[in-house]
């Protein structure tokens, strides 16, 4: 089946089908959210920017959340050995990501002539690292559990 969205879809047919469901569910939630906002806006004056931003966030967070919890990201992790190796890989990937993020955040701070607040910098880097690791870890754990049951 050909569609302009095909380029966003994974090669594997099960993953493709699940992703299509997630996108559709996200789109329906977005429409419902916008209808509610439309009605609320009649009584309370809401900022258009906030509503639009919240709409995008609802759509993206829903799809991202469903993807992570579906346990289909790490399709080949089924044994304890593979799982432990994947956790090690995840730790080193997160470390590299945090280092790169810190460098770019510093460069951005310097080039935009804004003083780098070290508390803010440390807090931001740690938060980004923890959130990134946590999301990946949940996805890995879910995938491992699902794959183990399928062996």
């Amino acid at each position, binding site marked *: 089946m050909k569609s302009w969205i095909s380029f966003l879809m994974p*090669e594997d*047919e099960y993953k493709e089908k699940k992703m299509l469901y997630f996108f559709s569910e996200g789109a329906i939630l977005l429409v419902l959210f916008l209808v509610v906002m439309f009605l609320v806006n009649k009584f309370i004056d809401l900022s258009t920017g906030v509503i639009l931003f919240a709409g995008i966030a609802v759509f993206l967070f829903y799809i991202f959340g469903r993807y992570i919890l579906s346990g289909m990201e790490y*399709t*080949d992790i089924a044994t304890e050995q593979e799982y432990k190796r994947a956790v090690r890989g995840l730790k080193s990937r997160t470390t590299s990501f945090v280092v790169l993020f810190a460098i770019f955040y510093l460069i951005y701070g310097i080039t935009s002539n804004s003083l780098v607040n070290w508390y803010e910098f440390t807090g931001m880097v740690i938060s980004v690292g923890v959130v990134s690791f946590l999301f990946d870890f949940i996805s890995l754990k879910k995938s491992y559990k699902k*794959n183990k049951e399928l062996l």
Partner: protein
Amino acid sequence: MKNNVKKIRMKTSMTQQQLAKKVGVTRQTIGLIEKGEYNPTLQLCVAIAKELDKTLDDLFWEVEE
């Protein structure tokens, strides 16, 4: 959908990973098909049947006993 994919695959000593690679899907998808938790497309059914050297009937047709 109940099927005989796992039984026949194991008879050929092929792993889920090997079958998955040959038919162009992930190991997870093969596992889900074997457990009857995912109904594959006809295209994938045919690919699996060819790799296991069986007919679609052998793999996917339910026979009441």
